[in-house]
């Protein structure tokens, strides 16, 4: 429990009013059209979506998760946080391709890249899955705030869950993505400032860099200062094989769309940028900020470890960064710190409310229920679905204790077996909707088998994470590669249109030749494609 002085309450109330007002201010812009409500009219300079990328991916549970891996693994745990590096290549590859497609959502992109029934099945599936996932993430992040408020003020968990998400919904309902991105900017500035202040304060409290290193030396744990202190090539709790697997997933994944769960909110930011160039820089810069933030947290948690070494309870050491703030900041700054936590929280909540509503409105309502709906009607549907997603997140949040383990498993399986198909659909013209659809279905089955069923019946041992990833990738390919070749290629008209518009990289030679034959590409373009 912490006690707030008057100055602490002042910071908190002032920041909340500022954040909500800043969002509501853009009410008139948000209601102009569907494109304004979900993409800010596709007119943002790169630094606004970049701030939104950073702010969105700094959630209430992020410092808990990073505290957990750094406290447990030392500085080598930084590689767990390196997943955001998929943006390094994506910013100049898949981001560029996706921005040129102009798709509102990843679900809509499916009907631009593929054709016929397969494309529609994929659009419907991804849209439905994203509505669910955004509701789930809102519940997950919301209950983390509920727990934090319980830890700080002794409130029941539901108060923190409902209070702050509802405050956030005010400006998301009013101004849509305009409200989200404008509030994200000032929330990002507040959050980054406080992350720097608290982390440096924690490092100083631990005796500064020399004090931290001396204490780790005295504990006989200087390996914690090395990012490359692997436990073996394939053995131990942090093998080299896992590090290499994470690097492949993160960096090569940048060629695909959907290889990281963060792709879906990023896709919205990509389309809200005013040009292809702005979209590339926004994704790159937003992720660079995330990487710097993670490094700040890493050293702060090492400082915490030197102050409180060898805590066994995960729940306890996951609060490390929060404890540095609440235990070491002076009175008056504690309220500032909590206001920044609220900023971190609201930026994530606002994004997922608006993103979930975009799939429900654009891909489900507009495309499947009422294709002739006007923009005015669609903006209202956007608001109603925002509200439904908010209410759904409360239900998920309150039952999260029971379902978290299942859903983290669901997140993992979504990532592993479809990682390669997510790349193939971008770089290989022959990969079709049936191949992609079958990869999702195969992955669902194989992940159950590999992760739970077969180890449970002692058919195979429990595999380490890196082996689970590679085995699911190979097993999935055994299904979707034959299905791709046994079914027809996509309709050439659709492929040519997509190619001319998006100019994907990789193996697209037959499509490029057809585009040239139709006079849609100049001969010079085709010759330059060489062996593609």
């Amino acid at each position: 429990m912490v006690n707030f002085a008057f100055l602490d309450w002042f910071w908190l109330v002032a920041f909340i009013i500022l954040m909500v007002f800043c969002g509501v201010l853009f009410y008139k812009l948000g209601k102009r059209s569907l494109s304004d409500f979900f993409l800010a009219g596709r007119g943002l300079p790169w630094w606004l979506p970049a701030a939104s990328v950073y702010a969105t991916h700094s959630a209430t549970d992020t410092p808990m998760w990073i505290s957990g891996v750094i406290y447990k693994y030392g500085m080598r745990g930084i590689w767990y946080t390196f997943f955001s590096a998929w943006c390094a290549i994506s910013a100049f590859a898949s981001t560029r391709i996706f921005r040129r497609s102009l798709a509102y959502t990843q679900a809509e992109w499916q009907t631009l890249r593929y054709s016929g029934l397969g494309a529609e099945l994929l659009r419907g599936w991804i849209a439905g899955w994203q509505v669910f996932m955004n509701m789930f993430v809102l519940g997950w992040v919301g209950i983390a705030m509920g727990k934090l408020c319980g830890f700080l003020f002794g409130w029941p968990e539901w108060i923190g869950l409902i209070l702050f998400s509802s405050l956030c919904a005010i400006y998301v309902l009013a101004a849509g993505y305009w409200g989200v991105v404008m509030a994200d900017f000032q929330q990002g500035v507040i959050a980054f400032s406080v992350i720097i202040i608290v982390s440096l304060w924690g490092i100083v409290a631990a005796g500064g860099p020399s004090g931290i290193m001396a204490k780790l030396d005295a504990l006989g744990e200087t390996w914690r200062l090395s990012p490359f202190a692997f436990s073996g090539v394939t053995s131990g709790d942090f093998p080299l094989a896992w590090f290499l697997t994470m690097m492949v997933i993160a960096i090569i994944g940048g060629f695909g769309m959907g290889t990281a769960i963060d792709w879906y909110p990023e896709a919205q930011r990509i389309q809200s940028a005013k040009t292809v160039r702005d979209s590339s820089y926004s994704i790159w810069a937003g992720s660079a900020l995330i990487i710097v933030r993670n490094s700040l947290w890493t050293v702060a948690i090492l400082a915490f470890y030197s102050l409180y070494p060898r805590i066994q309870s995960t729940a306890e050491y996951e609060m490390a960064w929060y404890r540095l703030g609440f235990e070491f900041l002076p009175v008056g700054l504690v309220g500032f710190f909590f206001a920044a936590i609220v900023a971190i929280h609201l930026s994530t909540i606002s994004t997922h409310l608006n993103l979930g509503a975009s799939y429900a409105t654009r891909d489900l309502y507009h495309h499947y229920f009422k294709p002739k709906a006007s923009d005015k009607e669609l903006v209202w549907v956007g608001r109603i679905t925002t509200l439904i997603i908010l209410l759904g997140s409360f239900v998920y949040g309150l039952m999260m204790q029971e379902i978290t383990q299942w859903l983290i498993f669901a997140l993992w399986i979504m990532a592993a077996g479809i990682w390669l198909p997510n790349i193939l659909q971008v770089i290989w013209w022959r990969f079709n909707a049936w191949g992609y659809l079958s990869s999702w279905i195969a992955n669902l089955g194989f992940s159950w088998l590999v992760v739970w069923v077969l180890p449970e019946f002692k058919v195979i041992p429990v595999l380490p994470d890196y082996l689970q990833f590679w085995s699911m990738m190979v097993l999935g390919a055994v299904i979707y590669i034959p299905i791709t070749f046994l079914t027809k290629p996509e309709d050439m008209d659709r492929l040519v249109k997509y190619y001319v518009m998006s100019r994907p990289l990789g193996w697209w030679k037959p499509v490029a030749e057809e585009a040239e034959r139709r006079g849609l590409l100049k001969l010079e373009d085709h010759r330059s494609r060489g062996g593609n």
Partner: protein
Amino acid sequence: MGWIKTKWTPEQADRWTKEDYITFIISPLIYVLLALGVAFSLLLLWYGWVMVGASIILLIVMIKIIDPKLKAISEDYETKQKKYLEDLEKIARWEE
């Protein structure tokens, strides 16, 4: 950097060229140097500052390589965007 192309026609910029592939290599390297460099700098280790410095230099090099191309792509694409958006609406409304 004479071997890096700085003037692009829209048709040339639409291709995937060595400038893109070099960027694919430099960009993750900057992230790695930034992640480790900031952490080591906070611990006041000299090689942390070297890494941060290297990441800034590589960032400048990367922008010099890719920015002229991105500008050319963007300028050309903006002229076509309106037509593409109309096509997108036709698909959403089942008119195509």
